[in-house]
């Protein structure tokens, strides 16, 4: 559905995208994961024909984003990070205006508007001005708007940014429903690991303008080498041998007083692992999360500085004043 080839976007000396390549299959939810400023939004803008790449290219729904922009636009729906609906108009009016912009014929317009409103659970609020909507409702309205013209691909740029945990979870339910109901391919960007884990069929990790890993969430976690056991010692750490002699241990990392053991089947193997150890202070055990995967891959924290996060805050302040 989408083919990205060797994409480069340069701003001055800064590489926002640095030779990015990947493909997205039909009807999957593809997650672009990475810290703020990693290049996710730049990538979406290029795929949505709003921005021209410095080098490389991309094909969306069989159309080249550089040479066939109109066809690409007809094939995609986009929900941007910042609010893009008119808050002084009603939900219905926002949808009607976009239906006209997309040339949806009069005969099917009203029916389609009701359909998408129902899909995002807003049919009861369609005649309220958008400024009376909550953040989550507003985002859902924008998703409905993105779906109006039956796009093949829907881009969601940080669909749950700034939403409370409850709205976030209900948003996930809606997104999952949309994929089955509308048969649309979804590309979403996020920097929430659990969101990507919950929703996405496949995830591409972006860091510094490059894809550093691409796989399904479960495979990515598998690649970490099983469950993680951290053993902290009072005195000296035993040698690596002590752990690796077991078949179920994949890998051991030794830090000052701590051994980090990656192993299979903690429940049945823990006893064998620790029964001969001396001077154990604490044992921590956890299943690997995507966050562990990412930290391992990039050696970088997800909470990077955000050149893009500032606007929502300023917007929030503006709305208050």
């Amino acid at each position, binding site marked *: 559905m989408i083919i990205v080839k060797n994409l480069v976007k340069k701003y001055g000396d800064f590489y926002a995208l640095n030779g990015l390549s990947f493909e997205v299959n039909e009807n999957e939810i593809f997650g672009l994961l990475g810290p703020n400023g990693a290049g996710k939004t730049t990538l979406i803008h290029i795929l949505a024909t709003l921005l021209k790449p410095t080098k490389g290219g991309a094909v969306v729904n069989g159309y080249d984003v550089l040479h066939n922009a109109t066809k690409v636009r007809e094939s995609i729906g986009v929900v941007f990070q910042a609010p893009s609906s008119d808050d002084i108009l009603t939900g219905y009016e926002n949808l*009607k205006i976009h239906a006209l912009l997309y040339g949806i014929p009069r005969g099917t317009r009203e029916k389609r508007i009701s359909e998408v409103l129902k899909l995002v659970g807003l049919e009861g609020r369609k005649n309220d001005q958008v400024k009376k909507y909550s953040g989550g409702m507003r985002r859902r309205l924008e998703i409905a708007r993105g779906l109006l013209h039956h796009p093949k691909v829907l881009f969601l740029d940080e669909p749950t940014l700034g939403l409370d945990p409850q709205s976030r979870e209900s948003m996930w339910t809606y997104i999952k429903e949309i994929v089955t109901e509308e048969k649309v391919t979804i590309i979403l960007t996020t920097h929430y690991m659990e969101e990507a884990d919950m929703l996405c069929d496949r995830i591409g990790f972006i860091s510094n303008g490059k894809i550093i890993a691409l796989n399904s969430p479960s495979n990515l976690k598998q690649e970490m080498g099983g469950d993680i056991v951290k053993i902290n010692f009072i005195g000296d750490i035993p040698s690596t041998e002590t752990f690796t002699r077991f078949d179920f241990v994949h890998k051991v990392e030794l830090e000052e007083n701590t051994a980090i053991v990656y192993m299979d089947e903690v429940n049945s193997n823990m006893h064998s692992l620790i029964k001969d150890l001396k001077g154990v202070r604490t044992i921590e055990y956890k299943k690997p999360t995507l966050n562990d995967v990412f930290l391992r891959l990039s050696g970088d924290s997800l909470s990077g500085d955000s050149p893009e996060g500032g606007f929502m805050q300023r917007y929030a302040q503006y709305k208050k004043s």
Partner: protein
Amino acid sequence: MLSTRNRKLKIILGQLYALWLREFKVFLRERSRLVASTFNPLLWLFVIGSGLGSTNLQIGTDYQKFIFPGIICMSVIFTSVFFGSYIIWDRKFDFLKSVMVAPSSRTTVFVGKTLGGMTTSLLQVAIILVIGVPLGINYDALSLLQIISIALILSFGLTSLGLTFGSYIESLEGFQLIVSFVVFPLFFLSGALFPIDNLPAWLSFITLIDPATYSVDAIRNSILHLGTYSFELDLQILLLFTLLITLLGIFSFKRMKAV
């Protein structure tokens, strides 16, 4: 072949209607904008009009009546240029992006916006025309038609001008620059407040390159029979200005960055 062309045309008309509808509804619901933009011309008309009117100027008519055409144009100038440069706002929110990813051409978006600007200007002008009646301004069918045509043409040109500036300026602070360096000069140099017959050469020259000059003069011709140039000449020059600005505007709009 014909039917696909018809279909395309239908879609473009729908898009124009959508863009126009958005602007029109937003304008109607933003009461503060409507009140503010109506109040300002009234302030000029009554305070400056009566104040300076009491000083016995040699202009061939009552001063308040003399500046009435100027105030109509002023209203158009402010509304249109502001309207065009509101695109800076649209860009701050992601509204403009959401229009740009729709399969509509930039020219369509540009024209749709301009139609919105013309409509809001026309509403303003209508309000002022009504206020003119108790002030003793006499209209007939012809002069009303002339005033409205002139106001629409000027509005088309100046909304384009606002969009042109708006497409280059990225920060909201730039809006203030437009007010100081575009809106006020256009108004003050148009002869809205003084006759342009006996000006010093430098000032006279500047009034000549201000498109609003010809609108003020045309409307003065139309309702006060006091023009410096003939109505026909005014109309022709105004059309020429508008055409040039519109071309410039579409050019700027097409090369504007979407993000």
